[in-house]
Every structure is written in C-alpha cells, then in structure tokens.
C-alpha cells in the first residue's frame, strides 16, 4: 500500500461519493435533496449564496502537513453555513486509476518524470478537474475543494488561469511547517498506522516516512506568487499570511475560519448533565440531586477508565510506557447542573471552562408542559413543528436554527481547542454540536439521541470523523432516558421511538441503550444516533427494531 496516500479509507471504496454509516460523518456525501443547512441564513434558487461566485480552493503543501484535514474541516464549516461544497481528493483519483494493487511510479511526483508517468499523471489530473467543473457547472456547486500537493509555482499559476477561463476563482491554501515537531507528530498520528509500518518502532517509522516523502517529492516551492489569491498557514495556524484575498465574501469568511483552525487532532467527548433535585424548569437554575451527583461521579470514572484503556492500547501497539494522552479540558454551560456535573472531574485537577453560549434551547411556553398538553394547546404549532422541527420556533422559544447561529463562536473555539475536550451540556446543544462535527443535515439534528448513560466520543481523522459510545455503568434506569430538565417539545411521530403521543418525553431514547458495552464500536451492534425512523415513518417498525437490539 502506498503510504503517501492520505485517505486510506477511500482506498477500499470504488465510489467516492458513498453514503455514510450512521457513525461516520457525512462530509463526503452529497446531500440528495436540497435542504437548508444548519446555520444557513437564507436560501436562493441556484443554491449559491452570498453572490460570491464559484470558487476552487486548492491546497498546497507536502504530505503530512494537514491538507486533507484542512479541506475536510473547511467543507464542514462551509456546508454548515449553507454553501454547496464538495471535496475532490486527488489521491482518491490516483488510487482509483492505479487500482488497489497497482504501484505508483517512483517518479510520479518528479518534475522530470518519464513520459508514461507524465501521461498517467495528466490523465488523473484531467479526470479530477473535469469532475470539479461538472460539480460547479451542472450540480449548482459553489465551492470545490481540490485537495492535492500543488508543489510548483508554475503549476499553480497555470491552474488558476485554467479555472479563470471558466469564470471560477482559485484560492490557494498552503499549510507550511517550519517546525519539524509538528510534522513528526502529524506523521505519527495519521500516517504510520498503515500496514506498511506494522511492527515498526514509531520513531523509526516516522523517520522512514519523512525520508520517503522527501525522496519522492524533491521539488516543492512555498507560495510567494503575489498575484494569486492565497492564505498560507504557518505551523498549524500559529501565523497566517493572507495575500490578495479580498475578492469575495466567502474568501474572507474562509480566511476567518482558517484563523481558528489548527491541524492537530484531538478527541471530543459529549455527555449530558446530571439530574437535578426538584421537578425542574428551564428558568430555575437548580442544583444536582443525589442521583445527579452519583451520575457525575460515574460519568467521570467511566470517562477516565476509557481514556486509560486507550492509553494502554497505544502502549500495547508499541508506544513507549511514558505515553500520555492529550490533556483533558472540560466545557460546561453556565447552568448550575452542568457546572456541578463537572465538579468531580475539576476536583481531580481537570480544567473547566464555562461558556455562556452553550445554554440549552429556550423552550418558551413549552416549559414544564407535558407533550400531551402541548399538543392539545397548540395543535397548529405542533403541526408546523412537525413540518420543520429544525427551523420552527414554539411561542417564546428558540428554534434549533437560532441555537446553531448562537453556537457559532463555540464551533470556532471547538476548532481552536488543542486539548481533548469533554462537553457537558444539554441535549439540544449536544445535537447541534454533533450535527456540525458529523455533517448531519438539518432534518436529522432535532432527532439525535443522547441517552444519559452514554458518553459520545468523536474520533477525528483527517478524512472523516467517526463517533463511538462509552457506556456508563450502574446508573439507575430511571435517570437514563428523559429527565425533568428535558424540554418537552414534541417531535414528529415518525421520529418518536415509543408511541406518538407520550406524556413523558425522552421515551424516544432507545430502550436497548442500557445493554451496550464500552467496547461497542462502529455501530456494529449499536443503535445509531440518527434514528432509524428516518426511513419509512412507521412507529411500529421502529419499536420492533428496538426490541431486537
């Protein structure tokens, strides 16, 4: 297997535009039907926003500089804003041309490559660029991200000219590292997991990998072309040089996002707050109950045990005994119950930050009302909500869209954070953050489920994120599903797990969730976070599905 190829995942897939599983994010899927993106402020008929025209974002940089990571992160953010974006990894095309078993010619990246190699190279480039133009011309695409090395100034000038002829702007994004440590760490975390390096000492593997890159791509010129539009990220975003980029709203917005991005990978964990003492309301900022305190302990212990087993796992795979995970930081909202849920871990020395933007969706008039009561009292509102649960606001309430727009600073801080991160927040907030990280559509987000007995772990990878769940053992069954803190906003019957009209919300939580083990991975035996009911909206079917798990 060619270790120069970044997107190993794609190698096994003949079709790049495949459908994701429920636990792998949808960033490489093209949404089938047009729908408003989570934070989209308005829609247009063409699907193109901001009158910014069409843009190709082309990456520049040697392997292991985080190009794919930047491409994917950018696509995630742009889609979230509602800009129709797709990523074209040149590596995918190379793989598909050369085939599983084929060898990339040794001189593939050489300037003075042999004639057959040049021919092969041009063929691959041509196919990729044709697909880009097809996406922009015929699929209402607005931004195509072209993920490739683009090592030479002449090539970059020619590419920009070629796209300009088609009335497409080219924005280059270079990831440039002067700090060897960053490169080595990136190689260690992303590249050497390949089978080529099975049984190698990590240090040797890193050095070998770097040597091979340098031998195979001997010519590389960093961007200095003052007439081109480019943003150069130096040392994982510590410094950004922005050249001639003021050509459109989106180009500036992209630079804004890059200012918050770094290329180091880290884990994100999501969990709910504990339950509170009294029959609680949104307005009362109540303290945790005894069960809630118990939950805080058990959740903390489960998380730490999981992290320790991860560490052991690394050591087993050849990492030195002294290996440490990234430090863990905790974010809570400013609500008492989330802060108190973090106290146990804070007591163990973990750093906690309160973020006021992370307070839950305001339930408005639905507060403290049973679902039946809401249905009886506001049948029209319920009907509207079922039409569009993402954008509809109950009287005095916030919609998920409002929440998503309010969470934008958190999303960017999430990208900025370098430590592992535990987010303790209300389910509504977790839904939106999860939706961003996993590229969920706006229609899916209101139906995501976060039962209290699970910590959701988002595992980043440069190609796509995936989610796993860590079971919290020994919780009282009654606190796992709905809790008094839940907003009893009815969701469409199709997405309701157990009966269309239920006085208790949260019964939509998969009943079988409690049987999961910490080892459950990849959704193999797990219940998807996205409800099965997204298929045919039949309540009985989804109940049956649960009974089987």
């Amino acid at each position, binding site marked *: 297997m060619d270790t120069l190829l970044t997107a190993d995942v794609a190698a096994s897939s003949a079709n790049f535009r495949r459908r994701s599983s429920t636990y792998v994010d949808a960033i490489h899927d093209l949404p089938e039907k047009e729908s408003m993106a989570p934070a989209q*402020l*308005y*829609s247009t008929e063409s699907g193109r926003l*901001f*009158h910014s025209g069409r843009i190709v974002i082309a990456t520049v940089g040697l392997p292991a500089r985080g190009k794919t990571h930047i491409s994917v992160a950018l696509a995630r953010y742009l889609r979230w804003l509602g800009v129709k974006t797709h990523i074209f990894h040149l590596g995918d095309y190379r793989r598909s041309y050369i085939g599983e078993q084929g060898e990339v010619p040794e001189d593939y990246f050489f300037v003075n490559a042999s004639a057959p190699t040049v021919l092969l190279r041009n063929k691959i480039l041509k196919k990729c660029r044709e697909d880009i133009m097809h996406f922009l011309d015929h699929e209402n695409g607005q931004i195509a991200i072209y993920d490739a090395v683009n090592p030479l100034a002449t090539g970059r000038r020619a590419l920009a000219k070629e796209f300009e002829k088609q009335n497409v702007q080219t924005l280059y994004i270079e990831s440039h590292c002067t700090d060897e440590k960053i490169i080595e760490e990136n190689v260690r975390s992303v590249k050497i997991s390949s089978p080529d390096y099975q049984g190698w000492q990590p240090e040797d593997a890193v050095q070998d990998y770097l040597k091979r890159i340098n031998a195979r791509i001997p010519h590389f010129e960093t961007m200095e072309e003052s007439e081109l539009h480019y943003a150069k990220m130096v040392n994982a975003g*510590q*410094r*950004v*040089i*922005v*050249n*001639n980029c*003021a050509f*459109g*709203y989106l180009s*500036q917005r992209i*630079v*804004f996002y890059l*200012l*918050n991005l770094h290329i180091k990978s880290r884990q994100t964990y999501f969990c709910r707050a504990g339950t509170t003492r009294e029959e609680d309301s*949104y*307005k*009362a*900022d109540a303290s945790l109950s005894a069960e809630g305190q118990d939950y805080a302990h058990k959740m903390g212990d489960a998380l730490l045990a999981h992290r320790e087993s991860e560490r052991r796992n690394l050591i087993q795979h050849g990492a030195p005994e002294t290996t440490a995970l990234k430090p863990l930081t905790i974010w*809570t909202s*400013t*609500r*008492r119950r989330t802060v*108190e849920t*973090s*106290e146990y871990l*804070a007591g163990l020395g973990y750093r906690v*930050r*309160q*973020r*006021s*933007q992370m*307070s839950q969706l305001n339930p*408005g*008039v639905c*507060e403290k009302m049973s679902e039946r*009561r809401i249905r*009886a*009292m*506001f*049948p*029209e509102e319920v009907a*509207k909500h079922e039409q569009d649960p993402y954008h509809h606001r109950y*009287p*005095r*309430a*916030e919609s998920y869209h*409002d929440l998503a*727009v*309010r969470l*934008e*600073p958190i999303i*960017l*801080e999430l990208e*900025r954070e370098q430590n592992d991160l535990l987010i303790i927040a209300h389910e509504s907030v977790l839904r939106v953050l999860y939706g961003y990280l996993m590229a969920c559509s706006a229609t899916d987000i209101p139906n995501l489920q976060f039962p209290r007995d699970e910590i959701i772990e988002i595992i980043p990878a440069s190609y796509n994120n995936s989610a796993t769940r860590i079971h919290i053992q020994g919780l009282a069954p009654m606190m796992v599903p709905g809790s008094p803190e839940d907003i009893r906003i009815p969701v469409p019957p199709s997405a309701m797990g157990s009966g269309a009209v239920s006085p208790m919300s949260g019964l939509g939580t998969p009943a079988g969730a409690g049987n999961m083990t910490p080892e459950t991975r990849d959704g193999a035996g797990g219940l998807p976070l996205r409800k099965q009911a997204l298929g045919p909206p039949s309540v009985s079917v989804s109940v049956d599905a649960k009974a089987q798990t």
Partner: protein
Amino acid sequence: MPPTPTSAPQAGQEQQQPQQAPQQISQDGLQPAGQYRPNLSQAPQGDFMRPTARTRARSRSANGVGVQVEDTRICVVMVGLPARGKSLIAQKVVRYLGWLSITAKCFNVGSYRRTNTPQPSASFFDFTNKEGERLRKAAAEAAVTDMIKWFKSPNNIIAILDATNSTKSRRRWIKDRCDSEGIETLFVESKCDDEDLIMANIKEVKTTSPDYQGQDPEEAAKDFRERIRMYERVYETLDEDEEDMTYCKIIDVGSQVIVNRIQDYLQSRVVYYLMNLHIKPRSIWISRHGESMYNLSGQIGGDADLSARGQQYAKMLPELVSKSAGDRPLTVWTSTLKRTAQTAKYLPYEKLSWKALDELDSGVCDGLTYAEIEKEYPQDFKARDADKYNYRYLGGESYRDVVIRLEPIIMELERSENILIVTHQAVLRCIYAYFMGTQQEQSPWMEVPLHTLIRLTPRAYMTEEERYRADVPAVSTWREKGSKAVHAEGTPAGTPDLRGMVK
C-alpha cells in the same frame, strides 16, 4: 453604549422577568386552537456573538460553584505611522461591534496629549525632544489607565488604543500592562508606503484635525509631513522579535495581511472585519421600494406589486440617482421581493438580488394592518412598542434577527465601492444604523419616508448623509411609538424637491 440586551437566555435574567404567557395558560386551561395569544415581547434571541461578559457579572453570585467563568476582554492596540488610517479603522471597529451588541470604546492618546499641548509643532514629536517625549508618554499612561478602569465594568469587552505605538518598547510596555490586568492584546498595524495615499489622507483628515485648528492648510500639511518624518526615524514595524504577541499586520490596505497567534474567536472576528475594510472614497445610496399596493391598504409584509405612484418613482429613480452619483460605476442590490425589483427596473446598472435584504418577516402578522394587529394581538402590539428591537413576531423575526442576517451584507458593503440598495423599511433602518451608529432603542423607530433616496458617504470621523426626495407623493408608513398608525397620506413628500437636498 448599547442598551443592556434583554436577550441572553440565562437563568438569572429569566427569573427577573415576569413571564406571563405560561401563567395565562394555566389560568385559562386548554384553549381552542388559534386562541392562544402569547406575550412575545421578550422572545429569546440567538445571541450572535456576545461573549461571556454577562456571566462575569453574575458568576460569583448566581452560580458561585467555584469554577470561574473565563471571559474575553481585548485591548486592540493600533500601530502605524500617522496618516495611515488608524483612527478611521478604530472608529469603524467600535461602530461595527456596537451594531452587534458588543460594547467597545476607543481611547485616543492624541486627545489625552492635547489637554496639555493643544497645538504642538512638529518639533514636539522629535524623539530627541525630552520634554515632548515625557508628555507623550504621560498621555499614553493616562489613556491606558483610563482604559483599564473602563474594563472594570463587566459589559465592556473591547477597547481600542488609538496611537502610533511606533516603538517595540512602547508596545511591550502596553502588553505588560494589559497582561497584568488579564486583558488580551491584539496589535493592529496599518503599514502603507504609497505616497499618494498618504498625502490624500493628510489632506482629507489631518489638516482638519484639532491640532491644526485655525492654521493655514498648506502650512499644516507641511508641518504634518514633518511630524511624520519624526516618527519615521524611530518607527519599528512588527517583526520577528514580537512573535510572541498577537498581531495583525495590514500591508498596503489589505493586499497582504499577516495574522499572528490569534487567541480566541472574538479576536479572529475583529481581524476578519479589518480584512474587509478599504479606504477608497465611495458612497452608498439607499432607498426603499416605491409605494406598493400593501402600503396603500396599510398592510405589512407580503409580496405586493408597486402602486401607480410607486411605478412613477421607479421611473424617476434613474434621474434621481444620476443627479447624485454622476457617471460613477454603480451596482444595484435589491431584495428578492417584487416591489424592490420593480423599483430598480429602470436603473441602467448591474443588479444583484439578495435574499438577506428581504423585509423583516412579520410571521402571523404578515398581510395584516397595524389596526388589525392591535385588535387581534393586543398584547403583542404593546410588547412591540415596549422593546421593538428585541420583539420577535410570532413565527417571524425581530430587528435583532435582521441584524444577524445582514452581517454578510455589511461585510460585502465594506468590501465594495459604490452601491445602491433598494430594500425595505426595517432592513434599511438596520443598515442605516450601522453606518450612522444609531442606538438600538432608536433605530427601529427611525422615519424613512417612501420615495426618498439617501446617500451615505463614509468619512474619517463620521458618515455624511444627504437625502433626495422625488416629486412623487406616497403614503407615510411611519408609525410613532404608541400610536395606532394608519398609513396616512404623507404631506411632505408632495413638495417638489428634486432641486435640492433635504438635509
């Protein structure tokens, strides 16, 4: 200072407000469908980017559970030789942040210095002049001290220190002062070596500066050029020695920008705004659509056609625009609603239609008259008067919501040159408020008559406004606070006014 937003959906605040709607429900029991009339006056807002300042005030009492809220206070330190547009940038940032409900204030060291030395000559700025040096340092000291005092108030988030700050030692001193107070620093350098640009700036701004009041402009310009030379001798640009600092270096008005060590979201947001600015002279023309059929019947919202008089305005608009704009190249922006497109129909320029320029969505009240709203939703009607900026129509939008969706428009406006916007009353008020720095409690009540073209010209210290009224009568859609507001036949619009400016 912007009013305290009543929006953040936070515990303490919610508790203070009597929430009538749920109580009302419990008294009335189950109501038949469609009868429910909630009080929407305090509908929660999606807080766009307001950081954690509010919790700072409350954290100790409201959830004093031992973990401190971390919040952001940023001192934006301007760096650059005189006549590089620093004050212009500083003022724009303050206005932009205020528009987004973030409290910001500019501290101009020059005005502190002026209290002791109102009209210094160039030699005052000679760095070998010990007395001048001492006085300038004292002014900086006073400005920084005042700024730190200002930051004690929990709502104050961004301060801008407007001075040349041309030496490394001065910048290091500011950073140390701020560090010790827990205030982040963001240095913003405007570096420009284009002589023409500098001289244009000197002529436009500096000769009208208080330093040169009552002096001969030619002499003043000469003296000022001399002053710049004094600074040039000791000027040190931000460079490798200051790698540890957070800075943004804008070279030749944004053709290249170097951004170093941005620490948080809010800083990146400020830098993002700075990158969109330019200083080329330009104007923005704004107009409401011509009178529509809904205006005549007094209905709000909708997507109605123009009335006959509205059509007449559309036909006159090209002449009205060219009187003001001459033969400057212009781009016309309209909303996606029929009445703006019809109004712009005869304009001989490139046109773009923006969904973001559509009128404030009045939800269930769309298509009603104010009288009908008052009759059917009396509580809403009152609530809207009480806090019009934050009031969100049931199923619709508030002014605050409109500001959020206009943010891309504002960024695009900052980037663009001459633009003519044909839009709607509420949207126009928000855009106008951005350029004129109008307070949130006033902006929703501003009177913007139909059939009037407004020209806004951004200058260094203010935005100039001119109004041109077309000689086409129209109803007045302006409703005074507390009034019933029938759309009345507007009298003043009847006066012939193409000849001159109203204001």
